């Protein structure tokens, strides 16, 4: 038997032994299960249209930001578990704009597009370093005036302040119920904000808070 054949056989035996060892380990033990299946219809990054104005409103005195791409593949199961029944992750990637006030980290801004009642709605969520909502703004929508009055009005959006990834953000209890024409879009907005907060919280490495 030639040396090359012997080496190939040894390699096969070693690979088989490694595979057997991996398969024999109980699921969820030291091995991490990462779900990297592509999500059908994954949307492109939603642009942050007015960063200066949003920063001034959400983080006064913040002077710069830096965009980071966070993979959610590792945290997908825990995110889905926290989102609860019917919860969905629309993308494996979370775009986080880290905002700074001088050298100090002031918070995060995340932007997401969701289906409103009459077109795409883009929401800008500011989160402080403790993971609490610093403010929510609607940067673009197509809602008719009856719904737009509620969504674009700071009054209703102000109720998001201080909420965290643990908040249920239910309309009617955690947030005041808007008038009827805006209900569906308001519910979708609350769901989107909650998803973003959970994704941000869960995307942090184990044992760390998202701001570390």
């Amino acid at each position, binding site marked *: 038997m030639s040396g090359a054949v012997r080496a190939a056989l040894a390699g096969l035996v070693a690979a088989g032994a490694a595979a057997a060892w991996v398969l024999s380990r109980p699921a969820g033990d030291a091995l991490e299960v990462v779900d990297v299946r592509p999500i059908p219809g994954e949307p492109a990054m939603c642009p942050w249209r007015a960063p200066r104005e949003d920063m001034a409103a959400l983080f006064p005195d913040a002077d710069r930001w830096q965009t980071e791409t966070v993979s959610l593949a590792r945290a997908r199961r825990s995110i889905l578990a926290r989102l609860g029944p019917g919860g969905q992750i629309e993308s494996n990637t979370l775009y986080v704009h880290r905002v700074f006030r001088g050298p100090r980290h002031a918070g995060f801004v995340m932007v997401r*597009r969701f289906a409103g009642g*009459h*077109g795409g709605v883009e929401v800008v969520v500011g989160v402080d370093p403790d993971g609490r909502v610093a403010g929510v703004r609607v940067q673009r929508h197509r809602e008719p005036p009856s719904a737009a009055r509620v969504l674009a009005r700071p009054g209703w959006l102000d109720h998001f302040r201080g909420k965290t990834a643990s908040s249920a953000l239910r309309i009617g209890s955690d947030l005041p119920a808007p008038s009827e024409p805006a209900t569906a879009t308001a519910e979708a907005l609350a769901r989107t904000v909650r998803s973003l907060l959970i994704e941000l919280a869960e995307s942090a490495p184990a044992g760390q808070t998202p701001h570390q």
Partner: protein
Amino acid sequence: MTALVLAGLFRRPLRTALTVFSLAASVAVLACLVSFGQGYQGGLRTELDRMGMQLMLVPLGCPYDAAARVLKGRALESSLPAAALEVVRRDPAVAVAAPVYTAALVRQSENRTDLWVGIDESTRMLKPWWRLTPGSTWFAGPDRVILGAEAAAVELRRPGDRLYSPETRRELAVCGVLERSGTNDDSLFFVPLETAQRMFREPGRLTAVAIRLKDPSLVGGAAERLQRIPGAQVVTITEMMGAFLNLLGAARSLVLAISLVAIAVSGLSIFNTMMAAVLERTRELGILRAVGMSRLGAFSLMALESLILAASGGAAGLLLALAGGRAIESAVRPYVPLAPAAGLPSVTGQAALLCLALMALLGLTAGAYPAWQASRLRPADALRLE
């Protein structure tokens, strides 16, 4: 021989690198230019072919500007009366006459423009390749909208959803979404013609009439007859394509001339590098000749060095074009009239071959004299030099 050539090139690495870099920059520009030209011409032809028409009736003014605006779904400042459509439809050479009303709504805060296009059933005959996504239907009444694939993705709409137009305060039912076609249709909002006219308060007016003839060879006579419609003018698609290609051709000739000058300068740079190499290595070449290298061998040594220098520059230039082509394309695209929706290729195979052949020729030409000088060295004279 190869070892000697490489040793010669690496003897002065900075000089070699600078020569390669200057060649690479010129080749990158040339490769992008040739590829863009080919891509633009092909893309434009495909898009115009897919329009499914031979003529377009537009309001009086600059015909090419008007036609380009209509094709891109941009608004025109003037419009045609609906009566023009009847005249066109009565023409014996006309197979399909599709009325179009386009309007642009600028959404300043989003840095984009919503393009609304009013059409009727005849547009489907002009665009038989249109495919609607499952669940979609054609307009079953007024205040319906069919969205291009991209528009639907931005608005997150599906058939059965509602869409509101804040600027015109009109609520529409999404009855269909077009499958992605890679054309400008992807980003448009299609509504029934009458709905568009009401939305933009121009009842009975048209932006253009797209015309398909029964036989494309009838284009001359049909254009002459339709030209007589008051307040209207006819543009043929062939004329349009010719006009756009001429516009592009003028700009292309200028840049081509500049890149050819840059390549000529790079050729001089190779010549200079090789002459310097021959002078620096006179003694070495003398020794090689003394130990038996033939005149042809000395010539080949320097010619090969020059060829490798040029080929390296060419290859580096192609890599540069591949890497930076997308950036160059996005910078150039806004200035290209009627740029095809599909991306322009950064480097085509034909352009790459052309550049490499040109570089080989340049390398041989620029290196010929220094190589000849090297072959003429007499060993005794060369060895006498300190």
